[in-house]
């Protein structure tokens, strides 16, 4: 059942308080200037948010993935740039190392990643394609003696170019399988490795305070021991990473959707038109009611997916449903909240303006809505017709 335990509830409250007291007052400025929120990240690190699903022996908090999702929801209720920074660092940066890393790799990277002192990133998408990963991949890694030599380009990689980015997991073609398909593996590339260039930040429509960059590799050499997990299992590994990540993105989307409700509830009491607060009019009340319905149902969808995942049951379909429903909810609520705010909703100084700009990417990142529908249809047995 979807009642939070006292501990989850206390965590949710604590992160919510942090978001309102620490993030809310400064994020508008950072967003407008496209500045990475270093100080917020440092404080979130001290609270242990980056280590939530990582065991204590690796410097984490010994919680679980659902705890991370609750934290992401509360952060995104106030701001998505901060939330996606945590999401990418934990679920794309640290978790693959925790799940697939050797004892040496875990020991080398996890303590700093779990403390938020170092950020990790995961480079899968390439300029030629993100939905069809094996088909679009051009990046190669060739074993030369005891070193991998990497060549290629990655596009839109979150957290890859901050001052505290320490490592990027790079998916690359390392050969051809027996079936003649590309063999994909993941290799850990420390920031600053010669031959690894991080371009300047993209100019983005939203998530403006987060760090997103194009990466290029030109004869970039790393030790053979930097292979993450098994050779040729890179594709399977990131599919697992992405399944989990979808629940996290769903949580983040629910946060944005709920943030729209929070802001609207405040505003419809204050703003007056034709002699009444605008919340007096049923057209506005229904909009807010619909927004609450979307946030609520999307939350149940991600709670359910997370519950299945933590129980060790198959959760691919539920994760895809949660991501699809929640990103829809975020997009619809952002549109409605902006409408409720009228002209002020179009101003960057109001949070809903930010929500509007931040919502769209949720239907694209970590699997587009079309990809989620493909996954759901496949789980329903429709793929082989």
């Amino acid at each position, binding site marked *: 059942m979807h009642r939070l335990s*006292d*501990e989850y509830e*206390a*965590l949710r409250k*604590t992160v919510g*308080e*942090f978001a309102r007291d620490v993030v809310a007052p400064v994020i508008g400025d950072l967003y407008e200037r496209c500045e990475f929120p270093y100080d917020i990240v440092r*404080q979130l690190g*001290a*609270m*242990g*948010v980056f280590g*939530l699903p990582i065991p*204590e022996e690796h410097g984490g*908090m*010994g*919680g679980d993935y659902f*705890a991370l999702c609750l934290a992401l929801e509360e952060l995104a209720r106030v701001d998505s740039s901060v939330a996606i920074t945590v999401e990418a660092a934990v679920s794309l940066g640290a978790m693959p190392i925790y799940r697939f890393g050797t004892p040496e790799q875990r020991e080398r990277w996890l303590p700093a990643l779990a403390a938020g002192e170092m950020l990790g990133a995961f480079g899968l998408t390439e300029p030629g394609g993100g939905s069809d990963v094996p088909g679009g991949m051009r990046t190669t890694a060739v074993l030369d003696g005891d070193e991998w030599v990497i060549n290629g380009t990655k596009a839109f990689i979150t957290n890859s170019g901050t001052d505290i980015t320490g490592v990027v997991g790079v998916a690359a073609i390392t050969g051809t399988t027996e079936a003649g398909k590309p063999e994909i593996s993941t290799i850990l590339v420390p920031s600053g490795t010669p031959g690894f260039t991080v371009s300047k930040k993209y100019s983005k429509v939203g998530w403006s305070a987060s760090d997103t960059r194009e990466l290029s590799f030109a004869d970039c050499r790393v030790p053979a021991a930097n292979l993450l997990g098994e050779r040729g299992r890179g594709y399977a590994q990131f599919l697992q990473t992405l399944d989990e990540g979808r629940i996290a993105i769903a949580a983040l989307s629910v946060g944005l959707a709920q943030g729209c409700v929070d802001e609207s509830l405040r505003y419809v009491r204050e703003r007056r038109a034709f002699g009444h607060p605008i919340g007096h009019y049923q057209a506005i009340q229904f909009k807010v009611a619909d927004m609450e319905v979307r946030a609520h149902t999307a939350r149940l969808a991600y709670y359910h997916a997370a519950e299945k995942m933590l129980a060790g049951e198959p959760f691919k379909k539920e994760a895809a449903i949660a991501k699809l429903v929640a990103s829809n909810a975020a997009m619809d609520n952002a549109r409605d909240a902006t409408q409720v705010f009228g002209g002020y909703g179009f101003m960057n100084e109001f949070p809903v303006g930010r929500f509007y700009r931040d919502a769209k990417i949720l239907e694209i990142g970590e699997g587009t809505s079309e990809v989620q529908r493909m996954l759901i249809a496949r789980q329903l047995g429709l793929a082989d017709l």
Partner: protein
Amino acid sequence: MNIVVCVKQVPDTATERKLRSDDKTLDREAADGVVNELDEYAVEEALRLKEAHGGEVTVLTMGPDKAADTIRKALAMGADKAVHVTDEALHGSDALSTSYAMAQTLKKIGFDLVILGSESTDARTGVLAAMLAERLGVPQLTLANKVDVAGSSITIQRVTDYGFDRVEATLPAVVSVVEKINEPRYPSFKGIMAAKKKPVAKFGLAEAEIAADQVGLGGAWSEVAEFAAAPPRAAGTVVKDEGDGGAKTAEFLAAKKFI
């Protein structure tokens, strides 16, 4: 060092707060209970002193069962254990009787240093630290924005209207803190999980040797005779600048005793 930090649950200042019409006490069911903000600074200071000098931090709360949430938060921040003084008979205690009940409990559990916030956001009497110190017969160091302990001596910086005083005393002592003293930490998830396993002792009147006739509505020295809702905020005063805007503004501020 055995530090006891007093923490009170108060109604959230962000919500509407009410008095009960029957016995004119605060309606604690009507609003969400939160940790009195200044007490979080007290907890933080206690934890910092413990980190620097060793020892143990005990949370002391007097309040209804619901106040257990407040204890849990202080434990999640890092306090070691807690004492929750709770008894139907305590309902309606005023500042004097509260200080009596708390002092009785403190005598029972022992302490080197008692730290508390300088006032609570609900009653705002700001007298508890002084009353506790008197009842316990130990020095009181109030309104501290800095605390230093060296051996058995304690020095604080006491905030005043004109700057600060340095006040020194020997332990055991009672210290009240203001919010400039530190930046309270947010509990980590590890702290939240650990809080579950920390001991919380429940004291009723008997355990703390509190005499029933000294506490509650009956034992209170003060009584709320009457109360009324605060008047709605009046429209502001607009000063029209006709060359004398500055002078008029100053006049207005002076009349309100702001300058």
